[in-house]
């Protein structure tokens, strides 16, 4: 770590209910492209927000040019030469390209004793900046609102350069771009690297990492996993770093009696992320659904739950064909869904534990549409005991609970509805190890004792391997693999998750 321009060490950051980063580290050298990768919730965004001064770390140090610095706000990070290009671009659509580039630091000249904006100089400098980036087809007088996403991004990059940025952070820069825009972006990135600008490149598209980056750092669950020279690694290794954690204290799954088919999906279609999906889940069975981010796992779950109703295909529950067009229908058919985004989709955080646990079963705690507080309280107290939710009582606001306990409240909401099928989307993401083991124990018991059919989506292969009776793998909206518990290994699942090109490359190497 001798020649680092920027270095972060031992960074810790907590939010209410989550530990976003623990002991994370990262460094970037002058003139390199350093990719930062990891699954959703791995802590990438938190880390770059610390670099750009949006968040302050709870502990740890940031070194710039070998000297310790503190960024109390984005402005301080800016003036240290760090610029960020966010997923949602921070431009003013009603202003021109030149005005956007020089927002806040426009060239001025004295006129009648006043400092006024020197429009000619501004446009000329804007043109010069764009020319440096090999961009010649962009009118500096055009309104930014009329530009396409690729051009807006170029304006944003030019703006960063006009501020003499030495470090440029790009957060998922290709997420919204067309193919030709992506190519142009790559050539700009290479140009910048040649000029000695350091680039922190965040993506979960591994092919971009191999195409652009010099080094790559992997985060997982807020922890630093490792940094590799891109030339010395391959896709398989990065995938296993991203998803292949060995969980300590992993709860051993109980053997369960596998019964009748509960859910049968036949040729479900809702492009682009659910294509021709057919599979089944039996009573007492835990089916793991693996795949990389963006492979369509959550979308498929939401097709079954009616959030994104299927365009074609058939869903059968206990042998009966059903039509599910909205979540309320799915709930009526006995499906529960513990969503990936706990705070937004799973819980109503402003409301109490009592109100959250009864949310899906209001009918059964009321008589003639009057809610019985007593029944609700009994339900919530039961959930608190059964799932050992650590709370002051049923009337505590859900938002005041830790992440793991919030997740238990979401699970208890669905258990109250006595579902036949429970879909759990990343059931243990972002919660601490203890709560994780408790959730695993609970899942195992529900399947073994109550004969519940569970479809579990997870980005952690060890979790998939430990909990599932059967494992399905998705890629690009399709089911591409199925493994029994016995035949599944970290390697063959990771291999199935990989893109076609990567597999060919891996095959050629063998």
């Amino acid at each position, binding site marked *: 770590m001798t020649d680092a321009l920027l270095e972060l060490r031992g960074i810790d950051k907590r939010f209410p209910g989550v530990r976003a980063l623990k002991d994370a580290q990262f460094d970037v050298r002058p003139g390199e492209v350093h990719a930062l990768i990891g699954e959703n919730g791995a802590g990438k965004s938190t880390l770059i927000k610390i670099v750009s001064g949006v968040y302050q770390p709870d502990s740890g140090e940031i070194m710039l040019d070998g000297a310790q610095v503190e960024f109390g706000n984005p402005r301080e990070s800016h003036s240290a030469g760090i610029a960020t290009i966010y997923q949602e671009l921070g431009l003013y659509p009603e202003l021109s390209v030149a005005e956007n580039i020089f927002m806040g630091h426009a060239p001025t000249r004295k006129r009648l004793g006043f400092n006024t904006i020197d429009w000619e100089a501004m446009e000329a400098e804007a043109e010069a900046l764009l020319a440096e980036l090999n961009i010649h087809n962009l009118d500096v007088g055009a309104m930014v609102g009329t530009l396409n996403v690729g051009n807006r991004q170029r304006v944003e990059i030019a703006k960063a350069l006009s501020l003499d940025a030495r470090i440029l952070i790009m957060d998922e820069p290709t997420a919204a771009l067309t193919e030709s825009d992506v190519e142009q972006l790559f050539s700009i990135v290479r140009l910048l690297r040649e000029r000695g600008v350091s680039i922190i490149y965040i993506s979960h598209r591994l092919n971009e990492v191999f195409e652009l980056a010099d080094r790559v750092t992997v985060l997982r669950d807020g922890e630093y996993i490792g940094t590799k020279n891109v030339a010395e690694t391959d896709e398989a290794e990065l995938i296993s770093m991203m998803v292949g954690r060995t969980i300590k204290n992993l709860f051993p799954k109980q053997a369960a009696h596998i019964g009748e088919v509960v859910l049968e999906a036949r040729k479900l279609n809702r492009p682009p992320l659910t294509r021709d999906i057919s599979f089944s889940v039996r009573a007492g069975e835990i089916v793991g659904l693996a795949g990389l981010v963006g492979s369509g796992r959550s979308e498929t779950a939401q097709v079954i*739950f009616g*959030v994104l109703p299927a365009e074609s295909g058939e869903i059968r529950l206990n042998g009966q064909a059903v039509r599910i067009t*909205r*979540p*309320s229908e*799915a*709930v*009526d058919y006995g499906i529960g*869904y513990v*969503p990936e985004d706990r705070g*937004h*989709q*799973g*819980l*109503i*955080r*402003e*409301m109490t534990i009592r*109100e959250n646990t009864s*949310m*899906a079963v*209001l*009918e059964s705690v*009321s008589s003639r*549409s*009057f*809610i019985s507080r007593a029944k609700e309280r009994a339900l919530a*107290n039961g959930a608190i005991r059964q799932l050992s939710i650590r*709370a*002051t*009582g049923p009337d505590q606001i859900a938002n005041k609970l830790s992440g793991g306990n919030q997740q238990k409240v979401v699970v208890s*909401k669905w258990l109250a*509805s006595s579902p036949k099928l429970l879909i759990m989307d990343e059931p243990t993401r972002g919660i601490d190890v203890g709560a994780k083991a408790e959730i695993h124990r609970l899942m195992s018991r529900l399947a073994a004792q109550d004969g519940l059919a569970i479809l579990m989506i997870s980005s952690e292969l060890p979790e998939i391997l430990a909990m599932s009776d059967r494992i399905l793998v998705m890629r690009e909206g399709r089911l591409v693999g199925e493994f029994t518990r016995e035949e599944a290994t970290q390697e063959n699942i990771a291999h199935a998750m990989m893109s076609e090109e990567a597999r060919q490359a891996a095959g050629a190497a063998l």
Partner: protein
Amino acid sequence: MQETTPAPRNPTVSEKLRRLIISQEGVLFLIMLASVLFLATRTDKFLTVDNLLQQGRFMTEIGLIAIPMTYIIITGGIDLSVGSILGLAAIVLGWTWQELGFPLELAIITAIISGTVAGFVNGLFIVRVGVPPLIMTLATLALYRGLAEGISEARSARGYPEWFFQLGQGEFLGIPTQLWLLIFAVIIFGIVLARTRLGRALYAIGNNETGARFSGLTVNRHLLFIYTFSGFMSAVAGYIFVSRVSTTRSDMGTGMELDVIAAVVLGGTSIFGGAGSVPGTIIGVVLIQLLKNGLVLAGVTSDATIVVIGSVLIFAILVNNFIQSRRGEG
């Protein structure tokens, strides 16, 4: 913060009382009481049974519309078209009776149905097309008023039979007839909001619509219902309005939406959704009405009255914010 879990126990009477007084509604009620006592010292015409009952008559229309408005604002929505729906219903009543020759009973029913349909249309576009409530009801604020003016052709209907005025000008057991209606509506819909599944769903939608949907609540159906309900109540208020003033004009209820929203927000309903109550709203309605009346009786000019009312609104909201935030820490 309590770290250990205390054994669940029922709060004592004095604790309950304390909680009630420092609640949003409690604070507002005390402010109302203080205002009443102050106004009573300024003029002896204010604090009389007759005057107060008369004020009850005047505030019924706003009170009736404020109930569904509370529901709507709790879900994070808004309905700006209520005043226009009131005007439309009033015009439909007069026009179908006088111009189309409907029996008056049928004219009343037609008017209420028109208002209900107008509310349903609001809800339909908000739910199905996804037009934001503010935009949709701003559009129908103009549209329904325009319809009313087009139908009325600037003529006013009058000459209603005697029985028609019972609701707007009569009394029952010594209390203005329409005030009974308001009292019943407040009790029933207050309980519906506080105690039933419908009420719970509205709070859930207002706090987190996605979360409500993902919990299997029928969000769209609830939203459609409350906007329709708002149209219905506005039309009923329109009928009462016509009965009270004995005539029908197309500009009835102009600007009323702002009075209604002011009362609801003053009553502690969060404009961002998720919190609020019918009792709070009704205290807001009463407070504004008593201030208007008391200040006029005390000889304050009408311009100054508006300024005072505005100031009291701001003061009440500040005091409440202060107390509620302190309560959150305690």
